[in-house]
């Protein structure tokens, strides 16, 4: 029975061909038929670009018709499959031929992903995947002077090599801040970029192409989202691959959420008689875009069909290759994601090489490596990792020309006793316990420990602890925003920019599911606001905002709101102080001086907000953004103007800086402070941005935090003049906005930033990513389009309508009740409310209410 089984293979790429060879080897009598879509039989796609070195299609071929004939394989080229009848076990092609099977192998591979950029479908906009593609590229290059590859990953650089060999002025445009972001770390990516540029290929990182239009000096012009552009004659898309899983769909096989035909360890799809191998197959939610794992699947499938017991159990994705003549290697955990791992870096600016090894916590095992410019250590390192061998006592000798130099250690994790959620008194140990007890995602840890279900202030910290713990147990952790979007905040930001998406609904339709929630909606609202700087209360955005953002005020426990006018730098005139006092008196508001040197007015009812703000705006106040994920205050000491010790005008600078960044939307709130001398009375080192005066200028500190998990800010640069200071702050904040996760403060962002403080310095001070112009330009755009949201709100004709308590009644919320304490109001307790209702005591605030109702009417 086994010997005469009919095996039909769809696809004759490298993996499909490997299967044919393996199958024939293990079963001499099997009836093997191959359907091949391309005109050519299997060829070596890995070396595709060598065709431009003078190699021919025949040189790349892995097999021939004669060879298949000798092996007794039936093969049909240019055959595209139209239908698969799983019951009758028959495959039908576009031309109507039918092929019966006992076992069907899908080896359909993948296709290049072309980003949805306007104008991407014109002639001379090509992809790089097949021999046919090469013919088109050759034809186009013959009538072109310059070429651009969109995508700076592994394949993109291969493609760049191809068009460079054709003599074109070659450019690579990459959306991420670095090349080969999957395989390399930031520093490795930077060195690779420098080396490639020396070879005559211009690299543009952090560039999002928004459209392709007719050029002036060349055939096309690529317009980037940062208003810059690049002209070119030929465009090659190489922005990643997608599994060619169409046949899986046709046959109604189980597919992954984001594509790929799901297979088990035996390479079987949801139909046990259909197997899938190579890039079209999805194993354990992973696609494998390298040839080695594909070959491995081919071996497993052949073994399964001939009674063997080989299983596919994942694959090591380490790679070593030469891109445009530059040696690049990536092994294992190249991004040093393993908790508590250690990094050892060797960098040689003269020879132009960079080597990093990632070691286990004890420093005795190799977890990963990044090599750029010199991969001679690759094989040794790979062996150490794959075989889990003990490292020598001085592991640095593996990458150093001669040993010496201390390894740099990464920060250690929190101890088990650390309190994560102070509302429910949950320690890190409790969270670890919950995970040990079977919780395997954030939601179940939350419901099991109650962590982050109180004030929610620890949500970000909790997530990072849970992610770390799960990752250390080998669970694949995702950084998806929520159940509605299978993407991180940064990925969503990219999509919004690249596809020019301007509304939540548009993004949800294209990339999400369900109706959204209170997690993704504000996150996307913030992305839209900081990308397009639209008024956050445009009708399309209203439903995305937290109540605080919707009503431009902070909701308190009883449903009333607090009002915080901006008092930049904490400086206020007596007249303005009097206005605040008078408004507070008139509306019976509770007054409290905040830690940020301004005044908070509590107890305002929803419908009172526009009236209160009308008064404040009339007196020259503007919104303090206390409700937004944006700049709060720039705290200052009194500075050299008055203070005997001050060396600079800290108040003047604080006001200037507060006015520059007010209203800017960010992943989380951020605070700043300016101290006039080293005594540091403004406590600048506990702020996201801290500035301390020196005799010669300003010292800049970044990423500090007070609050739940205090962190001293890091000294970033010293003795700066004012323009340089502002320039660096622009860049740091904009880089934070562009790269931080949702609700991630700068302190946590810094701790998770690959390369930490040094990396941030290289990006901001040395412009290592070449993005500083763009960061500054975006900041400039946003500062120039600033407008006070409260001024806009009250100028709008339906302000009063928007802020009513009831759409159908002028009455007010009778559940907001106050009592007097220390000569001011405070919310009544439940018991006090019951008492007030029983005695029908009208308290003074109600009289004010009636007056205000008249104003509103």
């Amino acid at each position, binding site marked *: 029975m086994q010997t005469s089984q009919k095996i039909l293979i769809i696809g004759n790429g490298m993996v499909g061909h490997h299967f044919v060879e393996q199958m024939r080897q293990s079963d001499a009598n099997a009836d093997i038929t191959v359907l091949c879509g391309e005109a050519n039989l299997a060829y070596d796609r890995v070396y595709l670009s060598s065709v431009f070195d003078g190699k021919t299609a025949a040189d790349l071929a892995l097999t021939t018709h004669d060879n298949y004939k000798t092996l007794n394989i039936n093969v049909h080229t240019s055959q595209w499959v139209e239908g698969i009848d799983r019951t009758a076990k028959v495959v039908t092609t576009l031309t109507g031929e039918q092929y019966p099977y006992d076992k069907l192998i899908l080896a359909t591979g993948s296709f290049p992903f072309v980003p949805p950029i306007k104008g991407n479908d014109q002639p001379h906009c090509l992809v790089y995947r097949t021999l046919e593609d090469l013919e088109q590229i050759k034809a186009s290059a013959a009538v072109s002077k310059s070429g651009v590859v969109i995508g700076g990953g592994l394949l993109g650089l291969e493609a760049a090599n191809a068009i460079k060999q054709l003599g074109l002025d070659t450019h690579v445009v990459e959306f991420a801040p670095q090349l080969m972001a999957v395989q390399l770390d930031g520093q490795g990516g930077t060195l690779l970029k420098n080396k490639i540029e020396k070879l005559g290929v211009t690299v543009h990182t952090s560039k999002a192409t928004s459209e392709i239009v007719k050029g002036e000096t060349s055939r096309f012009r690529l317009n980037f989202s940062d208003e810059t552009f690049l002209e070119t004659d030929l465009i090659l898309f190489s922005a990643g691959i997608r599994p060619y899983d169409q046949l899986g769909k046709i046959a109604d096989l189980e597919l992954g959420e984001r594509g790929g035909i799901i297979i088990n360890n035996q390479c079987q799809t949801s139909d046990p008689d259909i197997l899938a191998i190579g890039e079209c197959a999805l194993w354990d939610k992973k696609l494998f875009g390298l040839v080695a794992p594909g070959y491995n699947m081919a071996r497993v499938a052949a073994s399964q069909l001939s009674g063997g017991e080989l299983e596919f159990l994942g694959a090591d994705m380490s790679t070593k290759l030469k891109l445009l003549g530059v040696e690049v290697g990536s092994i294992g955990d190249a991004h040093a994601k393993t908790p508590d791992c250690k990094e050892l870096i060797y960098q040689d600016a003269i020879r132009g090489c960079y080597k990093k090894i990632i070691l286990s916590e004890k420093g005795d095992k190799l977890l990963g490596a990044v090599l750029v410019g010199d991969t001679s250590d690759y094989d040794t390192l790979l062996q150490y990792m794959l075989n889990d061998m003990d490292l020598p006592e001085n592991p640095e000798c593996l990458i150093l020309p001669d040993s010496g130099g201390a390894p740099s250690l990464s920060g250690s994790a929190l101890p088990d006793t650390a309190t994560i959620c102070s509302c429910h008194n949950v320690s890190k140990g409790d969270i670890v316990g919950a995970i040990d007890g079977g919780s395997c995602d954030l939601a179940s840890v939350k419901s099991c420990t109650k962590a982050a279900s*109180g004030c929610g202030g620890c949500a970000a910290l909790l997530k990072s602890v849970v992610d770390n713990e799960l990752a250390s147990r080998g669970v694949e952790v995702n950084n998806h925003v929520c159940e509605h979007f299978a993407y991180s905040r940064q990925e969503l930001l990219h999509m919004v920019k690249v596809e020019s998406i301007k509304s939540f609904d548009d993004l949800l339709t294209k990339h999400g599911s369900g109706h959204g*929630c209170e997690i993704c909606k504000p996150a996307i609202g913030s992305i839209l606001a900081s990308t397009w700087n639209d008024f956050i209360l445009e009708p399309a955005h209203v439903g995305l905002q937290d109540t605080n953002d919707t009503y431009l005020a902070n909701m308190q*426990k009883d449903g009333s709101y607090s009002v915080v006018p901006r008092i930049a730098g904490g400086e206020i005139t007596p007249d303005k102080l009097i206005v605040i006092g008078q408004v507070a008196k008139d509306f019976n508001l509770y007054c409290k001086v905040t830690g940020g040197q301004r005044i908070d007015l509590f107890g305002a009812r929803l419908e009172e907000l526009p009236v209160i703000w009308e008064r404040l705006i009339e007196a020259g106040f503007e919104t303090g953004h206390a409700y937004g994920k944006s700049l709060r205050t720039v705290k200052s000491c009194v500075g050299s103007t008055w203070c005997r010790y001050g060396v600079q005008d800290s108040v003047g600078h604080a006001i200037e800086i507060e006015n520059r960044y007010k209203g800017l939307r960010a992943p989380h709130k951020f605070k700043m402070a300016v101290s006039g001398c080293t005594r540091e009375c403004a406590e600048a080192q506990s702020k996201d941005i801290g500035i301390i005066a020196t005799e010669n200028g300003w010292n800049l500190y970044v990423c500090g935090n007070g609050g739940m998990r205090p962190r001293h800010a890091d000294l970033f640069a010293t003795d700066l003049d004012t323009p340089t200071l502002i320039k660096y702050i622009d860049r740091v904040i904009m880089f934070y906005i562009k790269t931080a996760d949702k609700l991630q403060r700068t302190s946590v962002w810094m701790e998770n930033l690959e390369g930490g403080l040094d990396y941030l310095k290289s990006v901001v001070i040395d412009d290592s990513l070449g993005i500083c112009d763009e960061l500054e330009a975006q900041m400039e755009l946003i500062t120039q389009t600033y407008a006070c949201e409260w001024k806009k709100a009250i100028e709008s004709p339906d302000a009063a309508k928007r802020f009513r308590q009831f759409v159908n009644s002028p009455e007010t919320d009778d559940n907001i009740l106050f009592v007097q304490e220390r000569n001011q109001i405070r919310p009544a307790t439940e018991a006090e409310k019951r008492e007030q209702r029983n005695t029908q005591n009208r308290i003074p605030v109600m009289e004010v209410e009636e007056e205000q109702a008249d104003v509103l009417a």
Partner: protein
Amino acid sequence: MSWHNIGTIDNLVANSGVCALVNNQQVAIFYIPQNPTAVFAISNYDPIGKANVLSRGIIGSIDNKLVVASPLYKQHFCLETGECLEAEAIHLPVFNAKIEDGSVFISSEPKVTTTVA
């Protein structure tokens, strides 16, 4: 069951909530234009936060249930059944709601009478 006209559809905010006073009860009314039901009405009182705030929460879906998240402590309440996803014992009063000839109608009594602390 009697219906209470709370005014024209202009009073509603798409994909968000407003509050109306119906028969002396505060009712949170949510308008989802793409949904066949379009309008949903539940009590405006958040029994956990003990304040009349639900109309000001963000609406969305959790496991295919349409919900509003309380702006106070973020518990989710189902717009169709009033159940609290985080506290099974809590069911909010749910009101019938409809749009007719450009006006919005809310039933003057809740659909199911439940005890809410």
